[in-house]
């Protein structure tokens, strides 16, 4: 009921759920050892940026297009290829269909 066999292994979500519950318990216990001097609405809660002033909220938010900058930069060539592929032109969509159809027909008939 819970587990599935994959032929060479098996998967039981209940074990995983128990593991997650245990992990949360451990986390909670560690958290209990934390410092109890934390007070809300005091200087303590303000973020500390090595003494620099805090920017306005809009500038603190990292934009989605800046995330994974290194990854996209290193895959530049592949992404250029993909960008060339996605022209947004309806004729090209049909052209791709014709190309795939032609390749499949050639392989299949031979």
């Amino acid at each position, binding site marked *: 009921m819970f587990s599935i066999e994959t032929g060479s292994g098996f*998967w039981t979500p209940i074990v995983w759920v128990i593991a997650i519950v245990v992990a949360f318990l451990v986390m909670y216990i560690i958290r209990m050892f934390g410092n109890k001097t934390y007070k809300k609405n005091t200087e303590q809660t303000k973020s500390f940026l090595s003494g620099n002033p805090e920017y306005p909220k809009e500038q603190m938010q990292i934009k989605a297009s800046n995330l994974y900058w290194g990854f996209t930069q290193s895959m530049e060539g592949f992404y250029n290829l993909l960008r060339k592929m996605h022209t947004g032109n309806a004729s090209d969509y049909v052209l791709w*269909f014709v190309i795939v159809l032609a390749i499949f*027909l050639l392989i299949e*008939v031979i």
Partner: protein
Amino acid sequence: MSIPLPEYTPALIIAIPLLGAFLTPLISRINDKLRNIFVILVLGLNLFFVSILAYNIFTKSAQEPYIMKYVFGGSQNIDLTLPIVRILFEVDAMSIFMAIIASTLMFVAVIYSWAFMKENTGLDKYYTLMLLLTAGMLGMMLTGDLFNFFVFLEITSISSAALVAFWTHKGESVEAGFKYILISTIGALFVLFAIAILYGQYDALNIAVLANAIQYTFLDKIALVLLIVALAMKAGIVPMHMWLPDSYSRAPATVTVALVGATLASLYGVLRVIFTLYGNILLDPAKFDIPVNIFIGWLIIPLAVISIIVGVMMALRQTDFKRLIAFAAVAEIGYIFLAIGTGLAAMGTEYGRTALEGGIFHIINDALDVGLLFLVAGAIYYATKEWSLNEMGGLARNMKYTTIFFIIGLFAVAGMPPFNGFASKLLIYESTFQLNPILAIVAILCSILLLAAFVKVFHSAFMGPKLPKFKDVKEVPKSMLFAMGILACIIIFFGLFPGLVLENIVRPAVDALLSNAQYLSMVLGGA
């Protein structure tokens, strides 16, 4: 044990949404609220009939494959081997499996539309098209006649294209709708061409009769390629996937959920063509020099791998929320096709069967996960009127429930362990590893990248400081939360009880696909 149902239930499943579709404009002249209730009732009734029928078929096909046959407009006992033309519905475990997905998605979409589409005008046409789309999808899944399949395919395309372009005040929506109808029509016309080739040779349109007679001649090969390529294009396989992000991202969120169902209906068409229509050829590979199943399997696998890679890589650098999910959906379709290809190439072995089980399990998981994510994207659009991730931030502070639903969808779609996506992906990984380790490695790597793509969404939309411009953003209305909740509950249920789902729903469907001889004998009768 099965629940007694009238024997005309398959016809009712199509007829109820059709009748509802044409009554909707008349009812909407009376009252708008009444119309919404009416549409929800119609789809609820439909879901009820589909579920009961599914229960019956799954229990009956636990021992051996069972097919429910329904002949339209005449006597139920006919000899199909004579050149008689009758429209038949042949409902086996696979078709009803897909029908459950389609009707659940449509039901959820209609509940969600109550609040989501409230401010739009012309909603009578919207609901009419939604019901027509339901009828078209269910027709594609239940029919046993190839030409009828084409007709329902066109009904699905036309109604969904009109729905994609429903926000006609936005140029991009109309553009996406035009691209969608262009691609769908070309696909459907080539499907019709292939059907005509088969009809010209064997003088029959019924799938079982054709499958019984098929010889795999030169023309049959052409028809097979035309059917697979055209239907795969409608299912959104790279490099013929470009229409998919366009139309998914610019349609209203409810329509996108319906489109997921329409895409999977085309995928069902591919499965039906390969495993049933050409099933006799595939199961008898000794007839030819190269075994046909390995040949077709290895034709599909490269396309599937390219789909996974391109879908994931494009998803990583998207900044438009719905477009990102759409590319993830392309990758998910790639996983399903990878499983189908592996199942074909390794037909007859133990892991080939495991691959097919994983693929078919992944169909339902894909529909649920991607559907939930699109609904979340729609909720964010409803609250902020923004598509772009660059403009969002800190929404978790105002939209708690939506955030929870997004986290569930994120983990499920990326295949994180206790959720349903992992169970099906594990089956796919294990079986592809035995066919070729490289395929499994690519699949696992891309799954991790998919998680990365959604973590990016999570970070940029939900985390971060509360932005001043979203100060007044509120949680979305209850009907939308309820619709998302239904999908989230099913996802968690499937995640916790994968064995139950696999045993009772997926296995009968796989059996139905693989046991071609029983299919033919049960439909053709007599023999």
